[in-house]
């Protein structure tokens, strides 16, 4: 009982919790704002990649594969550090939000691109032929006929990757962007107690756990359909 109280006192100190909560909420707001920035960026880049890969140009397809593999091999944190700490040496001083935006765009678009490409390939060729035979352009066929089906086919992967991108916003703390993890670490160093970090972990859980549940359900439904 004594130990339990001690542990609670250390990891979830109510007094500290109340004190830092508004601060953490601001960090959470920044995390959500970051998500709202980098997820659409990544999706747009991924769609552009899938479109490029669907054109029947060998060199373009090879270029897409090289791009995707390059950024899948590159740890996102290394990319971010390079953009934020490395580019100033070339006279390019990026604000941290821009470094995060560019880094996430490069990283996330490669993953999204791979998913969309697989989705587009999962749609039968006859769909292209039917649409083109009625006079739809390539682009119209892609947007009106192929993508709606492709998106449905790879929906679990899309949601899963979106979750990963959202989780990854935590690395923005390294370039001092005041998102949830950053504010928690700041608070921890001020109060000299781990409660803010534990609270941040709980907030992340509250934010992402519903998505994990949804994903799990989608994945199981996919298996049942086989």
């Amino acid at each position, binding site marked *: 009982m004594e130990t339990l109280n001690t542990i609670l006192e250390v990891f979830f100190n109510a007094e500290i919790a109340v004190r830092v909560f508004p601060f953490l909420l601001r960090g959470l707001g920044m995390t959500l704002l970051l998500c709202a920035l980098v997820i659409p960026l990544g999706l747009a880049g991924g769609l552009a990649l899938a479109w490029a890969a669907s054109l029947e140009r060998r060199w373009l397809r090879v270029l897409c594969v090289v791009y995707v593999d390059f950024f899948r091999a590159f740890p996102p944190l290394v990319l971010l550090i390079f953009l934020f700490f490395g580019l100033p040496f070339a006279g390019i001083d990026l604000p941290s939000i821009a470094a995060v935006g560019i880094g996430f765009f490069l990283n996330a678009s490669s993953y999204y691109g791979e998913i969309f490409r697989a989705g587009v390939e999962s749609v039968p060729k006859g769909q292209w032929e039917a*649409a083109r035979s*009625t*006079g739809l352009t390539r682009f119209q066929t892609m947007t009106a006929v192929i993508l709606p089906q492709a998106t449905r086919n790879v929906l679990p992967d899309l949601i899963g990757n979106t979750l990963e991108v959202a989780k990854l916003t935590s690395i923005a703390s390294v370039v001092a962007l005041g998102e949830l993890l950053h504010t928690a670490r700041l608070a921890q160093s001020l109060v000299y107690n781990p409660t803010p970090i534990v609270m941040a972990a709980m907030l992340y859980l509250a934010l992402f756990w519903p998505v994990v549940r949804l994903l799990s359900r989608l994945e199981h439904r996919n298996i049942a359909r086989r």
Partner: protein
Amino acid sequence: MPLTGGVVRPLLELAGLRKSYGGLDVLKGVDLAVAPGELVFVIGPSGSGKSTLLRCCNRLEEPDGGTVIVDGENILASGVDLNRVRQKIGMVFQAFNLYPHMTALGNVTLALRKVQGMARAPAEAKARDALAAVGLADKQAAYPIQLSGGQQQRVAIARALALEPKIVLFDEPTSALDPELVGSVLAVMRELKAGGMTMVVVSHELAFARDAADRVVFMDGGRIVEQGPPAAIFGSPREARTRDFVAKLAERS
């Protein structure tokens, strides 16, 4: 019905059409003229190039040589607006290829709105007419998965017809259907024919060919081996290959 056009200018005219895949010649110079209102029925063993022939007519396959003239326009010419031309050439596929994420009405309206730029209301009115013409007025809100194969194929026909094509190409339209569903699709095709539509049909439905086709074309090995009125091709073919194939087909059906 004139065989080679005569004084009437053909609606579809193929000359010296060639196509090969990786060194394999699928079409070795095909000449064919289809007059307005004519129903040309194409038969032949699998791999004879029938489907490729149809798919070259709207450039779903790119021909390697020859000419394709539709309604007086060389569609292989450089600079031709393929998407405009394709509206004149309806196509009906063996596997229907309906868009599974759209209702029957959505399937029909898509090209009307995107290609012809029609507003929603007139496009839907037109699509409803097209669905009614194939006997599916009550199925406009159904998704493809809720329809039988025969109904799906009729929606696909409506999708092609709504664009008011000059000619409709049928690529084995009943091959994927259960026998009891074939009749409804053939009935729609008969009505189309009666309405004066120009049609090229690749199929194995001999009975349909006998009473609806103006001309039967027998293809083998990438060439037209023999053509003539149904009675002649099925009754007294000149070529041995035609005779063999017709005998086999008759045996099967």
